[in-house]
């Protein structure tokens, strides 16, 4: 019988982008059990529907998280537009898809940097984030802000991107592909990186499905669960989208899936820029959300996010519920931590791509 200790992990840890607390029960160097505890960044944003009208609530929804900010704005607008039966023009759908896929690229590059940092490879971390800065420059030029965009509104978009600017973005992304490949090849070929990730935190296909995991976490185990396959509010049907799947189910496979998604997103953006129609970017929306409810789903960089809105005929919504992907991936994290080495805990905590400010709202 080894020595049993309880070690607290978080809320402050260099590898965590946001605070989560895990009590790890250790026997010698193996983790027997992990007990999660959240609430450090709870701001009660869903309760703000009582004070903010439905048009102003977009700004609150966007600020739920800094990494998946555009996704939350789009998801909220999508849900309210479906509740109020508003049809958004085609150009707005294409632009929203372009911004969302750019958001996915920047989120995955951020994750790659944090993964390198968790392994101790600081210079790779810095170079991943240097490439991410190019994407943030694109956001700055088009939306006006690096992190929070304020472009989505109920009924469409507030800003347009000119076609010449769109061609510039496509050219820039094509140039970035070679740089991204140098960085990601290091993750997959460097022996130290491979030995830290291969065989760590394995989840079989059935286990990942039973644990109800979403996003790259489950796609790396072989489950084809991607909301972009059924999405009708973006232009994914027109650009021949293919989900990125792997079957190994370990941290290496999850890294591979996220890198493949970066290149797939670049392909989607370039295809969307070629096919984008001209036209209006918004429709006027009058009146209040009617009595009723609506569920809608969106594929965020971390997985499937569910947006539930309930109207009661007034200018304030009765309920807004945002179920973010990290929320449902935490049981998967707790399960993979059972039986792992203590030194692998930071890698495993990062492999679900935790976005705790999304989870706690």
């Amino acid at each position, binding site marked *: 019988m080894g020595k049993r200790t309880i070690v607290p992990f978080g809320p402050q840890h260099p590898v965590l982008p946001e605070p989560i607390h895990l009590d790890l029960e250790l026997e010698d160097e193996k983790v027997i059990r992990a007990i999660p505890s959240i609430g450090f960044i709870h701001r009660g944003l869903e309760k703000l529907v009582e004070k903010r009208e439905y048009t102003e609530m977009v700004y609150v929804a966007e600020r739920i998280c800094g990494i998946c900010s555009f996704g939350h704005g789009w998801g909220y607008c999508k849900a309210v537009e479906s509740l109020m039966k508003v049809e958004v023009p085609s150009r707005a759908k294409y632009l929203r898809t372009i911004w969302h896929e750019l958001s996915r690229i920047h989120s995955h590059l951020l994750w790659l940097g944090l993964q390198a940092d968790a392994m101790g490879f600081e210079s790779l971390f810095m170079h991943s984030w240097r490439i991410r800065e190019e994407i943030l420059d694109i956001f700055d030029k088009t939306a006006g802000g690096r992190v929070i965009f304020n472009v989505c509104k109920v009924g469409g978009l507030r800003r347009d991107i000119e076609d010449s600017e769109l061609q510039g973005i496509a050219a820039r992304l094509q140039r970035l592909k070679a740089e991204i490949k140098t960085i990601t090849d290091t993750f997959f070929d460097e022996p130290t990186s491979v030995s830290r990730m291969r065989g760590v935190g394995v989840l079989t296909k059935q286990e990942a499905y039973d644990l109800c995991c979403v996003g790259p976490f489950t796609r790396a185990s072989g489950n084809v669960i991607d*909301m972009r396959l059924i999405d009708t509010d973006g232009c994914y049907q027109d650009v021949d989208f293919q989900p990125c799947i792997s079957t190994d189910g370990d941290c290496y496979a999850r890294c591979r899936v996220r890198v493949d998604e970066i290149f797939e997103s670049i392909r989607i953006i370039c295809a969307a820029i070629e096919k984008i129609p001209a036209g209006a970017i918004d429709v006027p929306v009058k009146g209040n959300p009617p009595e009723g409810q609506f*569920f809608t789903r969106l594929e965020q960089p971390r997985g499937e996010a569910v947006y539930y809105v309930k109207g009661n005929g007034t200018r304030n919504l009765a309920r807004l519920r945002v179920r973010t992907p990290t929320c449902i991936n935490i049981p998967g994290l707790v399960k993979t931590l059972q039986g792992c080495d203590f030194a692998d805990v930071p890698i495993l905590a990062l492999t679900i791509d935790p976005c705790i400010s999304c989870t706690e709202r």
Partner: protein
Amino acid sequence: MVSEVIAIKPEDILDKAEALKAEGYRMVQICATRVQEGFELSYSFDKDLAMKNLQFTIPLDGKVMSITSAYWPAFIYENEMHDLFGIDIRHIADGVDFHGHFFVTAKKTPWRELPPQKPAIKFTPEQLAAIAAAKAKKEAAAKAAAAPAQNPEGGKQ
């Protein structure tokens, strides 16, 4: 997006969850809303990207059976509902029942009270008179603007 909402009875939730699990459904989310009568709970399940939602209402002190025996990851939502709304959920699986220490907030069950109803705007008698006078003035100005246009056509008043 294909999604249907089915109303069920609160006692049936565990049976329905076990039936859906046997059919191969994945649990998506559990949501609680504070309504006048108590709480409205929505359980969402998904299979092959088609969503099914089960909904029911319980009174303020009502009890709900936990579905962690069928879907283990439901403990996240059930603990969160217990900590934020104060809903009494029975028989959460061993090891994942955190007894109120999962979602740590400064104030316990912060979302349990009904949201404040916005009062209807009430005008004082003077304000009502001023609004009526402004409306009458606007209508008179519109009539005066229309009258000169009709004069050349035979002196209608």
